[in-house]
C-alpha cells in the first residue's frame, strides 16, 4: 500500500517536472505557434523483461532480439521510453506468466510505469508470444494476450503487435507500429508501388510491371491497394491489387476505358471509391462502387478538380480545384452538394488528407517557392504548419491513430519518406534505399 502511494506521488512529481519542458516555451518565439497536441501528451516508462523462451529449441539470442524489437516498437509510439534492463531490481527474465503478480515496488522504484512479462515460442511454422502488462503504480494487470503468426520469419511482427496493445492499455488509443506504409519508388529503374513496415523496415515491391505506377491507396481492411498505372498502354488507369492474388484488376468497367483515370481513394467503409477521371476538358471527381458500378459525377466544370479525401464518417470529401485561378482546397458533401472553399492563404494548396479523428485536414502549401505540410481544421478556423523546411515537404498521409503523419521530403536531396508526430516532434526518415521515394499511403490497423 505504502509503495503505491509513493508511486502516485512520484508520478505527479514527474508530470510536474515535465510540464514546462513539453510546453516548449523556451523557443516559442522562434517557431510558429502550434496549437495541436499529439494523441497522448504523457510519456510513460516501460520495463520490458526478456521473455521466457519456450521454443522447442530455445536460444538466448532469439529472446534478446525479441526484447529489442518490443522496445523499439514501444518507443516508435512516442508514448513509451524503455528502461535499460541493467537498471532492473526485479527479475530480468520472465519466469512464468502464471506466477503471482510481480513485486511492483521493484519496478516503481526504477521509475517504471509499465512492466511487460512474456513467453515466446518460435518454431518451424509458427511465431507466437503471450504477454501480460502491469500498471506498476496501481499494481494492476491491464492485459494478458497471446499472438500467433503462421509461417517462417522473424518474430518482430509479434513484438510490434504486443507493443501496440500496450500503448492502447495506457493511452486508450491502439499503437501503429504493426501497420504498413505503401509508397512509390523508382529504385528498380521504373516507378513501382512498394510496401514497408511503419518503421521503414522490410520494404517489398507490390507492383513490378516496369511502367509508371503511382498514388497507392489502401482498402479500409488493408487487403487491397488501389493505384494508378500506365501498365496497359499509353494512358493512366486505375488498378487494384489484393494480397495473395496474382493479377491486378481494373477498377472501372469497360465503358469508361476511353479516358484517363488519375487517382482512386477508398471511403472509410470500403463501399465507395472516389475517383478522378478526365471529363469534358479537365480532371473531375466522381464516386463509384467497388466493381465499377454506380459511377456518379460530383464536380462538373472545365477546370481541374482532383485529390479527393474522405471525412472519417464518409459524409464529406475535401478536394482540390483551381476554379479560383489557383489550386485550393474545397469541401463538399459526398453527393457533391454544399460546396465550400477551405483554404485562402497562398496560391498553391494541394493534396488534402483528412485525419482519422476528423479534426484536421493536412495539406501541402507552396509559400515563396517552398512546399510545406500544413494543418487546417474543417471549418477553416485554425491553420498551422506541421512541417516547415527550406526544401520541399509534400503528400501528407495520416497514421490510423491520428498521432503521426507520413510525407515525402527532399531535405536530403532526392525525396524520401518521413514520419512526424502531430506535435511536430520525433521526425524519422523511413526510406534509406537508392532512388526517389514518394506518395506515402499509411495503411489501416491490421485485423
Amino acid at each position, binding site marked *: 500500500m505504502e509503495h503505491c502511494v509513493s508511486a502516485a506521488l512520484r508520478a505527479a512529481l514527474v508530470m510536474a517536472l515535465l510540464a514546462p519542458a513539453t510546453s516548449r516555451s523556451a523557443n516559442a518565439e522562434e517557431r510558429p505557434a502550434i496549437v495541436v497536441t499529439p494523441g497522448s501528451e504523457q510519456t510513460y516508462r516501460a520495463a520490458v523483461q526478456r521473455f521466457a523462451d519456450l521454443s522447442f529449441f530455445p536460444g538466448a539470442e532469439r529472446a534478446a532480439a525479441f526484447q529489442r524489437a518490443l522496445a523499439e516498437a514501444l518507443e516508435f509510439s512516442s508514448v513509451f521510453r524503455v528502461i535499460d534492463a541493467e537498471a532492473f531490481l526485479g527479475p530480468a527474465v520472465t519466469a512464468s506468466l502464471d506466477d503471482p503478480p510481480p513485486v511492483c515496488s521493484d519496478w516503481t522504484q526504477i521509475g517504471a510505469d509499465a512492466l511487460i512479462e512474456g513467453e515466446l515460442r518460435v518454431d518451424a511454422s509458427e511465431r507466437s508470444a503471450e504477454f501480460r502488462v502491469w500498471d506498476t503504480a496501481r499494481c494492476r494487470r491491464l492485459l494478458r494476450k497471446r499472438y500467433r503468426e503462421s509461417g517462417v520469419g522473424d518474430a518482430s511482427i509479434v513484438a510490434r503487435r504486443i507493443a501496440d496493445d500496450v500503448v492502447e492499455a495506457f493511452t486508450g488509443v491502439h499503437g501503429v507500429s504493426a501497420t504498413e506504409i505503401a509508397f512509390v519508388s523508382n529504385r528498380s529503374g521504373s*516507378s513501382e508501388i512498394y510496401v514497408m513496415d511503419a518503421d521503414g523496415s522490410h520494404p517489398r515491391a507490390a507492383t513490378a510491371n516496369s511502367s509508371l505506377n503511382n498514388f497507392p491507396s489502401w482498402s479500409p481492411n488493408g487487403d487491397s491497394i488501389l493505384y494508378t498505372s500506365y501498365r496497359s498502354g499509353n494512358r493512366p488507369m486505375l488498378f487494384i491489387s489484393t494480397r495473395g492474388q*496474382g493479377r491486378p484488376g481494373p477498377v472501372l468497367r469497360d465503358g469508361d476505358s476511353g479516358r484517363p483515370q488519375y487517382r482512386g481513394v477508398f471511403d472509410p467503409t470500403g463501399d465507395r471509391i472516389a475517383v478522378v477521371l478526365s471529363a469534358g476538358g479537365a480532371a473531375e471527381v466522381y464516386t463509384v462502387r467497388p466493381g465499377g458500378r454506380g459511377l456518379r459525377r460530383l464536380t462538373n466544370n472545365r477546370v481541374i478538380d482532383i485529390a479527393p479525401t474522405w471525412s472519417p464518417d464518409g459524409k464529406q470529401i475535401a478536394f482540390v480545384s483551381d476554379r479560383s485561378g489557383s489550386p485550393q482546397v474545397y469541401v463538399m458533401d459526398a453527393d457533391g452538394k454544399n460546396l465550400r472553399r477551405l483554404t485562402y492563404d497562398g496560391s498553391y494548396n*494541394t493534396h488534402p488528407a483528412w485525419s482519422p479523428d476528423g479534426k484536421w485536414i493536412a495539406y501541402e502549401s507552396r509559400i515563396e517557392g517552398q512546399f510545406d505540410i500544413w494543418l487546417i481544421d474543417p471549418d477553416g478556423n485554425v491553420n498551422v504548419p506541421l512541417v516547415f523546411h527550406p526544401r520541399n515537404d509534400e503528400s501528407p498521409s495520416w497514421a490510423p491513430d491520428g498521432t503521426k503523419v507520413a510525407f515525402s521530403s527532399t531535405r536530403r536531396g532526392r525525396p524520401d519518406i518521413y514520419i512526424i508526430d502531430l506535435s511536430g516532434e520525433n521526425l524519422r526518415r523511413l526510406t534509406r534505399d537508392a532512388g526517389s521515394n514518394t506518395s506515402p499511403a499509411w495503411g489501416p490497423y491490421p485485423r
Partner: protein
Amino acid sequence: MELRTTVRWAMAASAVLALVTTACATKEAPIVSPPSTTGSEFRDQPVRPDAPRRTGTAAPSLEPVYFDFNRYDIRADAKPLLRSNAKAIMENEQWGVVIIEGYCDERGSEEYNLALGEQRARAVKRYLSDLGVSSRRMEIVSFGEAKPAVMGHDESAWRYNRRSEFKTGS
C-alpha cells in the same frame, strides 16, 4: 539422442499442461488474437510484350513546346513552332494518329501535375485543331512530372520539363 528428444517432448508437454491447468485454475486465460494479414505479399506481373507501347516514336520534325510554371496557355514563342507542326502533321497522313504528351516540372503535387499536364496537351491539341489538324488524328496523354526531359532541380532543368511533346504511332 532419442532419449534427449523424448525428454524435450516431455518437458514441452508438461509445460503446456502446466500452463493450461494454471490458466484454468486462476482464470487467467489470455485473449488469443488471430494471425494478422500484415506482411503477406502483393504480387504483380510484367506488362505483356503484346501490350500497347507506353510511348510512341518521337516524330522527327515535330518540335516540343514549353510552358510557364503552373500555366497551360500557349506561349508566344511556341506558336510559330506549333504552326509548323500543324503543317507537318497535315502533310504526313502516314503518321496516323499523333500523340500529344503533356509534362510538368518536378515541383508541386504529383496529382495536380498530372491534371496540369493534361491541360497543356489539351491546349496544344486545341491550337492545332484551330489550325486545321483533324481531331481524329490527335490524342492526348499526361505524364505529369514523371519522365523529365532534363535532370536537375532548378529552373535550368524545369524550363525544359514543362513541355508538350509529339509522338507518332508508326
